[in-house]
């Protein structure tokens, strides 16, 4: 009987401590010390939220750099809504899946057409494969540099200037040795718009 009491009272005690006090304490300390991060690293334009430096968004216009393909699904049915942060997801396609080979081949041919590349030119893998979250904010330098001519043309810019800007905006590896070098697509496109 006493041990049953302990089981129930411990459950109640732990529900309060771990389910209430602990997350609320992290919340308070977080807003005190790192309030921008605690709220999702949002990027504002006046009073509207235009994105987050951590979350990728869809770009299709020629004067913007394009992110990786995204496999976030349409929650109401089949198919996908790219870069939907309300339902992060990968494609989950196997390496040996025929559907995967077909999708990548199609994406590569679209990528070449879009960026004026010859059919013989190889396409960086990240440009034609979906990320693990479907919200990858980054692309590789290889991918960004191949898109530079298209964006420069659409914006009447000198491609070599744009390429220098890409290199200057590229980030990583963190602390010089962790992770890989990458370019944040939203930050790059924002920099183009604001001319910085």
């Amino acid at each position, binding site marked *: 009987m006493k041990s049953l009491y302990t089981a129930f*009272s411990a459950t109640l005690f732990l529900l309060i401590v771990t389910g209430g006090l602990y997350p609320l304490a992290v919340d308070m300390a977080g807003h005190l010390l790192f309030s921008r991060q*605690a709220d999702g690293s949002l990027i504002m334009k006046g009073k509207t939220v235009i994105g987050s430096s951590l979350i990728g*968004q869809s770009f299709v216009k020629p004067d913007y750099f394009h992110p990786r393909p995204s496999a976030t699904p349409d929650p109401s049915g089949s198919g996908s809504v790219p870069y939907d942060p309300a339902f992060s*997801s990968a494609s989950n*396609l196997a390496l040996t899946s025929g559907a995967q080979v077909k999708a990548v081949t199609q994406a*590569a041919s679209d990528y070449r057409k879009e960026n004026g590349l010859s059919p013989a030119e190889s*396409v960086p893998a990240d440009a034609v494969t979906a990320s693990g979250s479907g919200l990858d904010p980054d692309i590789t330098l290889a991918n960004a540099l191949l898109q530079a001519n298209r964006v420069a043309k659409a914006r009447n810019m000198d491609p070599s200037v744009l390429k220098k800007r890409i290199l200057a905006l590229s980030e990583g590896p963190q602390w010089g040795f962790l992770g890989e070098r990458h370019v944040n697509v939203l930050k790059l496109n924002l920099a183009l718009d604001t001319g910085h």
Partner: protein
Amino acid sequence: MTTHDWIQTVLVFLAIGMLAPLMGRYLAWVFTGPSLRIERGIGRLLRFDPEKEMSWKEYAITLLGANAVFFLAGFLILWGQGVLPLNPRHLPSLAPEVAFNTAASFVTNTNWQAYAGEAQLSNFSQMVAITFLMFVGANTGLAALVAIIRGFTRSGVATIGNFWNDFFRFFLRAFLPACFLMAMVHLEQGTPQTLTTSVAVNTLEGGQQTFILGPVASLESLKNLGTNGGGFYNANGAHPYENPTPLTNTLEFLEMLTFTASIPFLFGRLTGRPRQGIAFFAVIMVLYTAGFLVIERSEKGGNPLLAPAGINQTASRLQAGGNTEGKETRFGITQTSLFSNTTIAATTGAVDAAMDSMNPMSLLVFLSHMFLNEEPGGKGVGFAGLLKEAILAVFLAGLMVGRSPEFLGKKIEGREVKLAALSLIVTPILVLSLTAVAVNIPQGKSSIDNPGPHGFEEVLYAYASGNANNGSAMAGLNAATPFYATSIGLEMLLGRYLPLLPLLALAGALARKRIHPETAGTFRTDTPLFVILLLGFMLLVGALTFFPALILGPIVEHYSLARGISF
């Protein structure tokens, strides 16, 4: 591997090598010596006496009773989500089978997720049900482990400790402070923590996005430190909010090893045999390192089927290359391989990439890790599994040389060997029979996403993950059906408690035995020879049991890939 890859890898391994002994030392303090005032206070409040010793049966009954109540509380919250507070998006309650599956999953430290976090759980469910179950599931595992270790340290005693004492000592002195501290580090790097539910976004091209926010950071540190693995978001550690930078990625897999890789050193301290602890650590690290090297190599190779499409998968100054499907750009191959190997070896089950899109050889490693489940294995119970294998290996060695087997001064007799073997056969029985059933009935086959051998791997992986209380998934498999939710839910409960009970009984039996002094004829178990013997035993038994299933899945897929065959 490039120089850059090697530098990251070597530094990470150095960090593990420094962290594990230090934490082992700290945990030895946690579990010995007098109770702190706050612990005695909690004992009075919840009416348990931390000094009152329990027999293995009392310990087991207390553990099971507590877990049953934890489970019930979690189930009721998830099942009643629709009428509970902090749900401004008006998300409906989980279906009963999914609520059952989830409560079973989190209380057993599995964290298999048959739901998509951001789409289906309110912040109340995430905070109260999920965070609570993550804490108590992991805490239970570590308490049980310490009780099992007492079987080896005690001599001629009928008791193995007090469950609540072990539970709250670890919770207060190590688990909760570590979670809070690391949550703050994750926050600094960009993981959100707020009670806001969602934010509407107007994108640069004039589109709409909705960000789902909530108490993510507090869940994130806990998810890894507790080797739980259940993420706030559907994409888990691949989601940039859960795992924003390569630094958080590194910290996450180091968190997974903080308490698990330190256990051999805790064992060495508690038994007064530090060399034995190092021997066990060596066994773990051999399997861990081998797993990493295979994954890294396989993923670096990219997908050969994409070569005809003119896809550049070679690492260079401009890209990390490799098999990028399902992986995040900021992590690349090496960070992903380090993370994936650790999360499976330590049975966390968090992922920072899509397991379903991994190379078949990587999947072979994941499946092998889950079948062995003790390198280092989940919070506590993983190491208990290693002790069980050691007893069987000593028994086998004794048979070979004709000596009566002994382990750490305790005679290993029929009862101990039977209990260890009983615990050992649970995994193959559950995993193989459930897989066999699922791939033969329509309810099992209809959930499979990818064709060919890979589809078989999805099912095998699901049941291996459920039994090992791992929780990672080849997420293409639709596990939210009544058949999978129920069968995996039951399997997680059986896979957790069935092997644990014989091990507690084993501890009870061993504690009662006297420790005999070593003689010149004693078979030493802290030597490189024993490390090799134990590794050989584990791999042999594992291979004999699981080889046929592995051939049908990853090995067939590997050779298909090599020959350019797609399905």
